């Protein structure tokens, strides 16, 4: 599941923010901020994308780099949110 999820996220980032198919450019642990590949609009796009794709709702106070700033962080965050939704 996690591997598939990361693949989906990476594919989205590559296509919509990096505009490339060169997989070597982005490692799962790479910070989007450090790479300069994201701006405020980019963050909003990613949030819309994960909300729609993974059926979660991102709250304002969850808009933090710890949750959103790499493929790894996104996958971990989405899994936490999905687990919370199941528990609730």
């Amino acid at each position, binding site marked *: 599941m996690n591997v598939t999820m990361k693949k989906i996220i990476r594919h989205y980032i590559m296509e919509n923010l990096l505009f490339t198919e060169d997989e070597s*450019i982005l490692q799962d642990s790479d*910070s989007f*901020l*450090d*790479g*300069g590949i*994201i*701006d*405020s*609009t*980019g*963050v909003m796009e990613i949030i819309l994308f994960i909300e729609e794709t993974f059926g979660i709702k991102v709250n*304002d*106070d969850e*808009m*933090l*780099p710890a949750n*959103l700033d790499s493929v790894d962080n996104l996958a971990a965050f989405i899994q936490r949110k999905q687990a919370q939704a199941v528990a609730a």
Partner: protein
Amino acid sequence: MMPVIPRLLQDTLLATAARYPDHTALVVDDVRVSYREVTDYAYRLAHALRASGVCRGDRVAIFMDNTWQCAASIYGVLLAGGVFVLINAQTKPDKLAFILSDSDARVLLSEQNLARVFCPAAEQLPTLRVLCLSKSKALPDGVENLDNALTHMPTTLPPQSAITMDLAALIYTSGTTGFPKGVMHTHQSLLFVLNSITEYLGFSQHDRLFSALPLNFGYGLFQWLSAVRVGATLVLERSFIYPMQVFKRMNDEAVTSFASVPTIFAMMLAHDAKQQLNFPSVRILTNAAAMLPVEFIAGIRRIFPQASLYKMYGQTECIRSAYLNPALAEIKPHSVGCAIPGTELLLLDENRQAVATGEVGTLYVRGPHLMRGYWKQPEKTAEVLVPGLLPGEFMLKSGDLFRRDADGDFYFVARSDEIIKSRGEKVSPTEVENAIYSLSSVQEVVVAGIPDPLLGEAVCAFVAAREGENLSVQQIKHICNERLENYMVPKHVLLLPELPRTINGKLSRKLIMEQCVTLLPLE
């Protein structure tokens, strides 16, 4: 030896480091650096640059994010006798290559994260040396590790030969069309405007300045230069991408000064409407880069209850022209105030004659803070640096139209080339924008004129609503009908999810015209 009076921009760092060596100069993420550390880094970099062949007057490009090394490198370049050229970290390879080539940069200082941008640019410039900050050993061919280059360099002052008339910086102005221009500033012009700014804002060594503006942008750069000038601390963020994190840092660090632009205020006000914001430690609040909508002021007061609000106006060619006495923020909410200390503003007509109080004229700036011109562009320079009041003196023609009241405070009317002429009437886009901003559901608006067979030009409004708010074309036309002469009411209103921005985050009429006019539903 330390000069008694600062003549070179770097003298301000040397004086502050001598006086407050252990004072925190910079807070960036979790890193805190003292003035001693900044100075030692700058010394080592200066020696490394000299060893790389940098001579007095050579340009050194700094292509980095808002990091402490970026901030310290400015002084390293100056101590080497060089001219710093800061380049926005969001710049793409082609534009980077253009700036490196246009400025004849001898050395590029960058960071590994940006290798995918600078590598293609540097390939086109075989004589350029690239020094790169890197966490790992592996760097692309031809790129040297900056940390390694600094390791064995001494932390001593290299011999200085520059004088105050020498260039200190080329500041490339964000190119909304065509290629950017390098604005040439000397040590003298930058030191002068720095002293003027720190004087009217009243910064002291106890202040903790906050900025998320890029350092390549004059307004952002001067947050750092001001902190160094007075020995204050600069809390530097990379951006406002993660606002919650920024807000937390502002309170954790108890910042006393906040440098903002209308877009940041708009975002904060939208946030505040959902969840209250409060920054009681801020005593100095500044707005520049674009006119602050009057409707924002009351909300800003709630968010920053202890702050004096300084509305400021300027342009890269002189950094800063005007500021409004904060006591007048509500009394003259549409004014940008008067000339900054030690300078003069003139309002002249087409024949360079002074216009009467209340009349519209072109703004000319007079003072020691003017640029020396645009790098390698004498024709463009001659268009804006025009003969001044004394022989050999130049004034800066701002291209902006203003009015002045009886007290000598100035009111922005429009860019001279942005006045819309519709039905033969002059329409100020700003006036129409202000009307539309009075709708609380409006996030941002830009008004521009487009060619129209009947009207000459038709007034167009490009509007973005606040997130989650309902906003209709009818509402916008209605408020304009209520507030404006009918020739000013936009013929076309286009609702957009957001408005396009320049690389410095500014709204730009030109950019919006380029990108959005085709979206208009023209008959």
